[in-house]
């Protein structure tokens, strides 16, 4: 593709231009904000950790696994969060709940928080709202392996961050009353 290059004919500098150059006018414009702050000084740095910032409502912090109000885990091990995660943080190993034939859950659940982008896609993907983003962010550690969290740790985070819990699904939506239930009269899957 041909691009026609048009050059503007050079304008002769006027007296005003000349004056601006002499007085560093442009620099002063740039420094305006700095100079104003210098004149009426008010500290904006928070003295963290003594002072803490007010977090916005939609703050996306540490991830957590949640429970229903009867204490049972919400996660059904569907693996959708794992599929949704763009940076492969999550690993779900699903299986049948021991002692509860045909009910599905995540046998193991891992999050490698060193890689998490806090995008919240997993939370969106979860069909049973088993994931939540807490307001926790103080997760600096010396050994980054400590950021490799298992299910128990993630549930614990949920427990301390979400004291108000939802009712079980079947109580909320009678129409899905048959979702992921156990059938005691069936044998457990052999392993």
């Amino acid at each position, binding site marked *: 593709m041909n691009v026609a290059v048009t050059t503007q004919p050079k304008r002769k500098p006027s007296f005003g231009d000349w004056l601006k150059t002499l007085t560093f006018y442009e620099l002063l414009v740039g420094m305006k904000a700095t100079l104003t702050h210098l004149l009426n000084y008010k500290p904006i740095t928070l003295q963290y950790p003594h002072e803490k910032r007010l977090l916005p409502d939609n703050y996306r912090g540490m991830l957590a696994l949640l429970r229903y109000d009867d204490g049972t885990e919400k996660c*059904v*091990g*569907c*693996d*959708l969060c*794992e*599929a949704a995660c763009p940076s492969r943080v999550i690993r779900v190993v*699903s*299986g*049948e709940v021991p002692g509860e034939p*045909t009910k*599905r859950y995540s046998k193991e659940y891992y999050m490698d928080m060193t890689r998490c982008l806090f995008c919240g896609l997993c939370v969106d993907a979860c*069909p*049973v709202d088993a994931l939540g983003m807490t307001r926790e962010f103080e997760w600096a550690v010396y050994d980054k392996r400590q950021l490799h969290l298992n299910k128990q740790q993630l549930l614990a985070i949920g427990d301390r961050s979400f004291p108000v819990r939802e009712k079980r699904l079947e109580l909320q939506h*009678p*129409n*899905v*009353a*048959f*979702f*992921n239930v156990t*059938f005691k*009269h*069936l*044998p457990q*899957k*052999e392993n």
Partner: protein
Amino acid sequence: MPDQKPETVRLTIDGTTVAVPKGTLVIEAARRVGVMIPHFCYHPKLKPDANCRMCLVEVEKMPKLQTACSTPVAEGMAVRTATTTVDDAHKSVLEFILANHPLDCPVCDQGGKCDLQDFSHQYTPTTSRFTETKRIFQKEYFSPLIETQMNRCVQCLRCVRYCDEIMDVKALAPVGRGTMTEIKHFGPHELDCEFCGGCIQICPVGAITSRLSMYEYRPWMLKRADTICTFCGDGCRITVQTKGNELIEVNSAHGAGRNNGDLCARGFFGFHASSDADRLTHPLIRREGKLVEATWEDALEYVAEQALRLKLAHSADAFGGLITSRCTNEDLYVFQKFMRQVIGTNRIDSSARYGHLNGVQALRRVQGTHRWTIAFEDIVAANALLLVGTNITETSPITGLKVKEAVKKRQASLVTMEALQPAIDTLSNITNLALQHFPTHPAQFGNTVLGLTKAVIEGNLVDATLAQQAPAFVQRLTSALQGISWENLEAVTGQTRTQWTETAKILAGANRLVILVGNGVLRHPGGDATVTNLLDLLILLGKLDKPGCGLGPLAEENNDQGAVEMGAVAEFFPGPAPLDDQPVRDRIATVWREELPRTPGASLTEMLAAANKGSLKALFVVGENPVGTLPAEAQAAEALGKLDLLVCQELFLTETAAMAHVVLPACSYMEKDGTFTNSEGHVQGVRQAINPVGDSRPDWEMFSALSVLMGSPLEYGDAREILKEIRTVIPGYGLLGPTPTPPKVDQAVLSGYLTQGFAGDAATRYAVSQPRQTGDGSFTLMFVQTLFHSGKLSTHSKGLLQLQQEGFLSINPEDAARLDLADGGQVKVSNSRGAITTTVKIRERVPAGLLWFPEHFDGEAKQLAEWTIDPRTQIPYFKLAHVSLAKVS
């Protein structure tokens, strides 16, 4: 099949013109131009049922929407698949389905590969107008391996139709009406069927799923490897799905492989054998009488050292080798090359000895090929099929499906000769489809075939040209058979002359006649003679070299055919070529750059005898277990106990491996690359699906390593290099194509056979063989293969063990009533060799006077078997016993 070109019809689909054969369905024509019409109940394998209404399309000049899955194309038809009306129809059909569909996707194993999910995404809004409670079915326990969740069923009946049309099992049925229709099996107990997994594969939603892999995976997590099943000679293409290094699922895509996506229980549910916890993971060396773990270096050096020492002290012929034909062609080839070149002996054998050799020898002798002259396609296209000595459903299930297809879809006439009774049962029974069935005692196959040949000759059905071309052959057979009276034949076999005559007419009248011979003949005394006589029958009918006609021996092991072709038997070099074939010997010698040994080979039984005498000092055993499989009379344990060096390459610590000096852990079929050659002679690629378990290695690698240590290296980079060498030795071997190209009858060999070749043993082949008299009881006990087990791997598969995990005695109801035996009761089975106590199972399909015992659980029972060795072919027979029964209370 008339081979005329079918008429073509032109039509337009969404404006694209397409020409398709007459009779094609609109949905198939659309697929050809890349238009996918949504559907649930349509499946290319099944007859159209048009029950789901998902596939509605607009056809010009037709007042209403039409179901694309049941409307055949017509000249000039204009089909539209994407108009507003069609779209509305899709929406409404889906809305009705979803009105009752649970929101199970998160916990449903079909999620991610579900047609309903896909179509819903494509055609429906995300909200529903229905607020009513959904339909809920009582959840019932279905079976240990198949899980149903009827709330998810869209009532397309694909499962029911598959089980009936393809499998002929008829285990499933729809129960109830309207939306309350659910799929159930029969009877008050859990599902009892062939467990082919077909219903799992064909269900478009998650209503029928595998319990074996339940909740273990999501489709997108799985890595797939297309490989070949190891459990029988049919050679099915399987797709092994793994997560990490874990085996999750096996299935087979429609249109893939020789099996076209159909599998049997062993292929579908048997895959866990490879990851069994009992797998050997380290080499073992015997130190102070005990097998202890060792490194590969130590183990291989020990073997090489001992082998060199023994070779020096004795001769190359103090060595023997035994390999299972479940190995890949590459393993088999390197094995025989190792034995012939590095050790320098022809004393090798493989499990093809147990029966498959009978078939190959007969084919070579009469028609000059070592392979079938037919392929599966010819079975499907046959007009008449003769099955001799095969309970094909249980031994070669997929070949069985081809036979069923020929009979059910193409109205072929089926004639069966087998120790099997027609009966409706939980497994399909091929004799139910037979036009003529000869219930044949296992020792009477030869005589029953004689009757058929006699009927052909006496019915003047002999091919007219043959009588001119080979008068000697026809006359010799005619006179021999005239010497046998019908009364005599009827008396020994229990068949009737009329049935033979009728059958002869059916076979003679068929344009395309296919004969399949199974283990009942191949693995029993006189097997090769019976196969030769069947080939004679084809010759007499003038059909041996006609297109679409031929005889096929059914291999039991997945690579029986390959073992023979790779020369892993005593009498053949790779090819197979006889040991005295000088041109082949020269050709191989140029490739190997070494002379081939001139000493005669030795079969399994000869090697055992030699070991017992002390002339055999060392034995390499690959995946075989003579101590465990042969009856005590074979004296395998004694023989192997006398060896100075016994090396076993094994997956598990078998009875034989437990006696070895060194045990080397081998890879299973899931962990290696290579090729298998199936019954019909099709060479197919085996691909690695998981990493080797523990420190195990492919068998060829071990021989390669040993050869280096022993100073005459056979080095290969990978399995493909071996295949390349195989191709120089056997030109054109295994050019992997989608379908086999069966060889043609070698006319020179055939005319040689017709002039003189037949004469040598015609007198013995055409004489009534009298049943052997034993002093033992009146029942004939057969050790049979069952559908749920095959080979030495299947008893390590947790899925298959859930279907069958112990031996039991199958008995005919009349016999059971006579002896007052109840189903599930105990019975004592005894003869002069010993006695066992086992459980009784009453099955109508067992003929009176016969008893079946599954050979995979024959542990104790084996001692009852009669041990005979065919003096000519050296084939050992040990699958039969004469016993008496007594109730145990």
